[in-house]
């Protein structure tokens, strides 16, 4: 959510995940001209509290990067002075994003593996050694894809206006359908992506990404009814999304029609369930009022005697 806010505030940042301590090493690069716009956005974005899902490090050994805030501010001055020298040094996160983007084209053939990333790196003109610098290799590729899809979904939500005409359940259904269709080209290798996401080291990040996705869908569907818990809504949608995703893996119908039918039914069930739960709650309240303060009354009499 914070990242979405950051993206809306700073369009120049684009796909950038500010590990702001690491990024300063790029600023300090010898004979480097950092694109001034990027530099400023990096300096200011660093102060936005940002959840960086890719920065999770579960290994027991401690790892860290070299920069403290004071050195960054000194580096700021240096880069301003060196702005006029030689060729512009690309920001390393952009380069990594380019490699991952190129790797996606090879995924259909090679799967979500090192081999796809090596091929992607070669396409972009980088040495395949760069693959070793991604924290969890294949997971980096899968996470990049998930982020990319989420970004595309947000763009679609922002540009299309016809959601208001639909009732909430149809809105949710349409959004989930749009999102799942983005995975359709990779469907033959999607089970592998799911298994990568399910690995213990990768679970925190994949969970966070799914949470953001579900949150975004609910936010766009803009459910006014605030009866059920925020968490319950998202959990239910998370469950629906995952089951639809799994159903899609073995769906052989043209254009995944069976999946959409399955999805619609589940969403209808969920909304019906919501009404059922609401009615059950009213019933419980009524019954409770009927019984009256019988239990508190009993306890009072016990303590007074």
């Amino acid at each position, binding site marked *: 959510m914070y990242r979405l806010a950051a993206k809306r505030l700073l369009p120049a940042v684009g796909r950038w995940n500010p590990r702001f301590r690491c990024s300063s*090493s790029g600023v*300090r690069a010898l004979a480097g001209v950092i694109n001034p716009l990027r530099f400023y956005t990096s300096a200011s974005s660093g102060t936005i509290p940002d959840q960086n899902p890719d920065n999770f490090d579960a290994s027991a050994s401690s790892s860290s990067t070299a920069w403290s805030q004071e050195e960054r501010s000194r580096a700021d001055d240096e880069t301003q002075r060196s702005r006029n020298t030689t060729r512009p040094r690309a920001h390393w996160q952009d380069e990594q994003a380019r490699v991952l983007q190129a790797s996606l084209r090879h995924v259909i053939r090679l799967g979500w593996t090192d081999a796809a990333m090596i091929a992607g790196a070669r396409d972009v*003109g980088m040495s395949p050694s760069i693959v070793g610098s991604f924290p969890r290799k294949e997971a980096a590729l899968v996470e990049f894809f998930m982020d990319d899809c989420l970004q595309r979904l947000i763009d679609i939500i922002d540009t299309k206006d016809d959601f208001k005409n639909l009732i909430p359940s149809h809105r949710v259904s349409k959004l989930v359908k749009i999102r799942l269709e983005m995975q359709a080209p990779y469907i033959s290798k999607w089970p592998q992506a799911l298994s990568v996401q399910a690995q213990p080291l990768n679970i925190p990040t994949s969970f966070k990404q799914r949470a953001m996705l579900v949150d975004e869908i609910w936010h766009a569907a803009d459910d006014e009814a605030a009866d059920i818990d925020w968490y319950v809504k998202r959990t239910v949608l998370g469950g629906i999304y995952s089951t639809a995703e799994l159903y899609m893996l073995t769906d052989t119908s043209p254009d995944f029609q069976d999946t959409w039918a399955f999805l619609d039914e589940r969403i209808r069930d969920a909304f019906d369930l919501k009404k059922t739960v609401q009615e059950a709650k009213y019933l419980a309240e009524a019954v409770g009022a009927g019984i009256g303060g019988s239990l508190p009354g009993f306890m009072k009499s016990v303590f007074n005697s």
Partner: protein
Amino acid sequence: MATALRLIARSLRKNKIQPLYNSCSFLHSHATSFGFKEVREEEKSQMVGNVFTSVASSYDLMNDVMSGGLHRLWKERLVSKLNPFPGMKHLDVAGGTGDVAFRILESINSVKNRALLDVHDDNLLEETKIYVCDINPNMLNVGKKRAQERGLGDNSSLIWVEGDAEALKFEDDSMDGYTIAFGIRNVTHIEKALAEACRVLKRGGRFLCLELSHVEVPVFKELYDYYSFSVIPAIGELVAGDRESYQYLVESIRRFPSQEKFASMIAEAGFQKVEYENLVGGVVAIHSGVKF
């Protein structure tokens, strides 16, 4: 006579001033420190050379004894971080006895990785080239012998080169990977070695440095210091018959820049995404950087 006296006086004054300069310019001091002794820059290279000539034959045995076999795990970790791939051009500097190079080659040729190769990549295994560069020919000879024993003697992918880390004879942008394991401490000018590393690496190439580093963990630090200064030189005397060299070893570890400082030096040489990972609480650190 007067001029001679003046020269002597000047050199004496220079020696007194030097300690002051040392505190301001730490990097300059690495070039003139041989462990805790102060030496001239020109001499340091020679003295280090002598150390390694004398320890070459028992180098691997001493590594095993001093680290309790842990150095193998550290090197494995280095290689797995590197993530070698078939067709790679890799340079292992100060890798005299070949430990890291063998591991990289074996990882590329391992059955698990071979199974993942595409049918079109048949030539890649032959294109793989691992250069082992060392300034000391004795260390290289020990390495060549070990390669024979491991069955890699005739492997065309393994190339032994005698060279200086500060002035590599390789072309610009020619290497996919550069590793230096337990070697950068012995280089006279660290910045030059780092600059050379940046020069020979391709875009996207990675620099990895495995080195003994500083321990800050409270109790463990004292134990480690005791082990370093009391136990290691004694073992050196027993096993290798050379107390002095191992005294130099433990002292040079203390004189080497801290993890953070070294990481900043790497960044200054032109690398990006500079990080380090402490192993065994800081006894060993793996620094890595990418050239873009």
